[in-house]
Every structure is written in structure tokens, then in C-alpha cells.
């Protein structure tokens, strides 16, 4: 008498083929599932992008303000910049604003910019920039200047003491930035805390919306096929194969949805802010690294979430007694 055999385990390649065919013949329905994922991911991604753009706008505005402040101060010391000579001493790292300032000065027509010793005392003003301690005393830096004026970007910069026989009293030292009052600092801190809280809150809400959206799309697409899963089991499909099939399918749909959603969310956000504030302002100080990390996280997260949302009902259906799976009516 014939013996009972073992059902073959279909190789992954075949499962992949069957899953792709499944998506193809269910293309319309698959699109609906994908758009569920797209909406979820796009919502999240547009929120992240908006936060990054808002931050970029704020940073860029602050930098522009700082730059204007510095230029105004310089003009108040020596009047119109054109035709003037400015000595420059840089100690340590310069900030973005300082670099911007230098770029503007270099472009100013008629302005000569050079090292103090190279100018031989012809300078109208000495700029001291950078975050490090000075390596020369103010009287040496301003040596030969008719009216020694030193404009410093750092209030607490350390200077070596004056050369013996000369006096610091003749050198006037002005600061680019006065110290912030404690009251102002507190106010800024509170504002920053509120902004962080708002960002966190929006983040949590959008994560929830995304999770629910994706889970709903995939849960529906599987539960409406319980009967089909029951039929497949009647025809000799094994639970592991059904799980594999849905895992592949949901990974593909989830990945497609996540990629489209990420692109869509980013683009919409850029379009909205760009048209309002101008693309120059939003891209100048944009945290591109942060944006790429967020995009990668969105694609990976969307895909994994889709797989998780599909695998739970698929696993449930695969383990069901075929008779019960066949009885379900969705």
C-alpha cells in the first residue's frame, strides 16, 4: 500500500514568484494597501521635515541677524566700509556668523582686509575673531594705528599682558556682542523648552497615526483573505509557506509605500515652506544629515511595521483549522 509522503517545502524563489504574481493579479487592491502605507509614512515624514525646515529657518535668521549686527557695529566705529582698511586677527575656531562676516567683507568693494603686521598700522579698525585665547597683546596687534580700536567677538577672551613700556589704555576694546542678561537667557530657555515639548508631542502623535494607518491597511488586506488562506490550506499549503508568502508580500508593499511616502512627505513639506519663505532661506541652514537619517528611518520603519501588521493576522490564519478559516466572511 502507498505510504503517506511529505509535502515539499517550496523554495524561497518560488514563494517570491508567487507573491509577486499575487500582487500583480491583485494590483488595484495592492495599490490601496500601498496608499495606506504611503499616507502614514508621508504624514510622519512631512512632520519631521517641517521640524527640520523650521529649525533651519530659525538658524538662518539668527545668523543673518548676527551678521547684520556685526556689520552695523563696524560701521558705527569707522563709518562707510568702502575705502577703509581693516586688520584681522583670528584665534582658534571661527563661528558660522564670523565666516559669513568675512565673506561679506571680502566682497565689499574698496575694503582692504589683511593681517595686522602686513598692513603696517594703516588699519582703521582691528577685528579679533575666533573662539581661542589671543596669542598677542592688544597693543602689539594695534601697533601703528592712528586710533587703536579693537572689535572683539568674544568678551572673555584672554590676552597676554602689554609689552613692557607700552600701555593698554590707548587701545579701545569694543565687543560685538554684549552679555545676555539673565532675564533674557531665562526667557530663551523657556521658549526652547516649549518648542521641544511641541516637537515631541507632534512626533508622538504622528508616529501613532502612522502606526495605526499602516497596521489598518495591512490587517485589512490579510483578514479579507482568510477564506483564501483556508482554501490554500485545503489544497496542501503549509502554515510556514503561507507566513512566508504574506511576509514577502507585505515587505514589498510596505517598502514601496514607505519609499513613496517618504518622498511625498519630504516634497510636500519643502513645497509648502519653500513657497512661503523662499527656497534660499529654508535650504541655507538645513540639516541634510538629519533629513537623510529621518528618511532612512521612515523607509525602514514603514517596511518593518507593514510586515509586523501583516504577519500577525497571516500567522493567525495559517494556524487556524481550515474549516474555521473557510467559514470566515469578511
Amino acid at each position: 500500500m502507498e505510504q503517506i509522503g511529505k509535502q515539499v517545502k517550496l523554495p524561497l524563489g518560488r514563494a517570491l514568484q508567487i507573491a509577486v504574481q499575487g500582487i500583480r493579479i491583485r494590483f488595484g487592491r495592492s495599490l490601496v494597501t500601498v496608499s495606506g502605507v504611503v499616507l502614514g509614512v508621508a504624514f510622519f515624514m512631512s512632520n519631521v521635515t517641517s521640524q527640520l525646515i523650521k529649525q533651519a529657518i530659525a538658524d538662518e535668521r539668527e545668523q543673518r541677524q548676527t551678521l547684520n549686527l556685526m556689520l552695523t557695529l563696524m560701521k558705527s566705529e569707522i563709518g562707510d566700509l568702502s575705502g577703509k582698511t581693516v586688520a584681522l586677527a583670528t584665534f582658534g575656531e571661527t563661528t558660522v556668523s564670523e565666516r559669513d562676516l568675512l565673506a561679506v567683507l571680502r566682497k565689499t568693494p574698496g575694503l582692504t582686509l589683511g593681517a595686522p603686521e602686513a598692513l603696517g598700522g594703516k588699519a582703521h579698525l582691528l577685528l579679533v575673531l575666533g573662539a581661542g585665547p589671543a596669542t598677542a597683546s592688544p597693543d602689539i596687534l594695534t601697533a601703528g594705528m592712528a586710533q587703536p580700536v579693537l572689535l572683539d567677538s568674544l568678551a572673555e577672551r584672554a590676552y597676554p599682558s602689554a609689552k613692557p613700556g607700552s600701555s593698554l589704555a590707548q587701545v579701545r576694546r569694543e565687543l560685538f556682542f554684549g552679555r545676555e542678561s539673565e532675564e533674557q537667557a531665562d526667557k530663551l530657555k523657556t521658549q526652547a523648552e516649549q518648542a521641544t515639548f511641541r516637537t515631541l508631542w507632534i512626533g508622538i502623535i504622528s508616529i501613532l497615526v502612522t502606526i495605526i494607518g499602516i497596521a489598518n491597511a495591512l490587517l485589512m488586506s490579510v483578514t479579507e483573505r482568510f477564506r483564501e488562506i483556508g482554501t490554500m490550506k485545503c489544497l496542501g499549503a503549509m502554515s510556514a509557506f503561507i507566513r512566508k508568502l504574506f511576509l514577502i508580500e507585505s515587505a514589498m508593499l510596505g517598502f514601496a509605500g514607505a519609499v513613496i511616502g517618504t518622498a511625498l512627505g519630504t516634497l510636500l513639506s519643502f513645497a509648502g515652506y519653500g513657497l512661503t519663505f523662499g527656497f534660499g532661506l529654508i535650504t541655507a541652514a538645513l540639516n541634510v544629515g538629519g533629513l537623510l537619517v529621518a528618511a532612512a528611518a521612515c523607509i525602514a520603519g514603514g517596511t518593518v511595521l507593514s510586515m509586523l501588521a501583516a504577519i500577525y493576522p497571516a500567522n493567525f490564519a495559517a494556524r487556524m483549522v481550515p474549516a474555521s478559516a473557510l467559514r470566515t466572511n469578511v
Partner: protein
Amino acid sequence: MRNVIARAIDVKRQYKLGKETVWALKGISLDIYEGEYLSIMGPSGSGKSTFFNMIGALDIPSSGTIEFMGADLFALPEEKQAWVRCNKIGYIFQTYNLVTVMTALENVTLPMVLKGASKKACDARAAEVLDQVGLGHRLHHLPGQLSGGQQQRVAIARALVNAPSVILADEPTGNLDKATGAEIIDLLKRLQVEHNATIVTATHDVKMLAISDRIAWIRDGKLDRLEERKDVKFTKE
């Protein structure tokens, strides 16, 4: 002596409905012989569909078991149960249970795909079987584009494609009009004769009686009577 292909041994099945326990099957023992046409008759709610599901390993008995090809069906590991479902049993349902997004041909190839046959072999064999059930001209139609009778023929072709030894048909004519139902019954009978297949149908269609070899009457979860066709008196029911 006829070979026993499947044997039900004191099969019981209980369901929990809320706090109440309902016994759908109260212990049925029955031998099914190779090559016979067995009808399981009984009114709705008698437990015949539940019993039918047990024979096909679609449901698990609360106690008792089914022996299939000499082995305890419910003690088999999953890959052997799947092998039996795929290779040895063909299922036909009242509601057809076709995959609605697949064409007739794709539906019929499914059991072959699941046992790893090549696409070429699948398509050739499926077309052949569809032709046998009279649907050679409807290979690429979706179930929705076919009539009820045609859909049931697709389901029959799917049940036949792996040349099983047993075909289980649960109310195969239940959703069909009389004339179409009669055609399906003729088709099943022809299959039994031509393929020497064992056919088990759960039905309450009395027309099935005329072509059955044996009739198992199920009433209230128990085997009420087991009759050879020649003993059945055809009265006006």
C-alpha cells in the same frame, strides 16, 4: 474484500456556544471504501458538514479520529497532513471557494503549484482537466465572469488536478439550480467511473441517492442508518 481508504473511529466534536456545550457529532464510526460513491445525507444541522470536514482533515475532532491510508490523520505532522490534502484528497465546496482574483486556469494549477510542479507542467495539466469538465474554452476567465455551474466545474477541475484518490464534495449542488445541479452530479459520477475515484458527498439533494453506492444517514450527530443503494426505497420525499 474492498480496501478501506478512510475510517472514522468514534468521531466526536463539541462546540462551545457561550457557556453551553453543543455536541455536533456524538460519535460516528464509518468505513469508506476505495472507489465507492458514498453520500452523507441529513438535514441541516445534523452534523453532516462537520463530519465531512473531519474526513478531509479540515477540522479536528474533540475525540476519536480518522484513519487515512492506514495512518491516524490527526497524529500526522503538518507536512504529511498537507501532503494528504494536496495529493490524496480533492475538495469541492458548496460555495466553490475559488480565489476570485485568479483565472480558472490559475485556480486549477494551485494544488500543483503547492507541490512544486513547474509552471509549464501546471498549465498543461490544468488545461487538460478543465477541458475534461467542459471548460476548455473558459481557461482565462475570472470566477466572477463564470456562471455558478461553471465555477463549480472549475472547483471540480481543481479537485482533480493532482489525481487524488478521494474527492470530498460538501453540498456541491447546494448553490445551483436543478438542471445545473444534475449536470454536476453526472460529472461526479463520470469521474468515479472513469478515474476509479472515491467520492464522498455531503448533501441533502435526493437526486444524489440514485447514483450513490452507499448512503450514510446522519441525524442529530449520529449515524442513523447506513444503506446500500439497492436497499433504498425511493418514495416521494
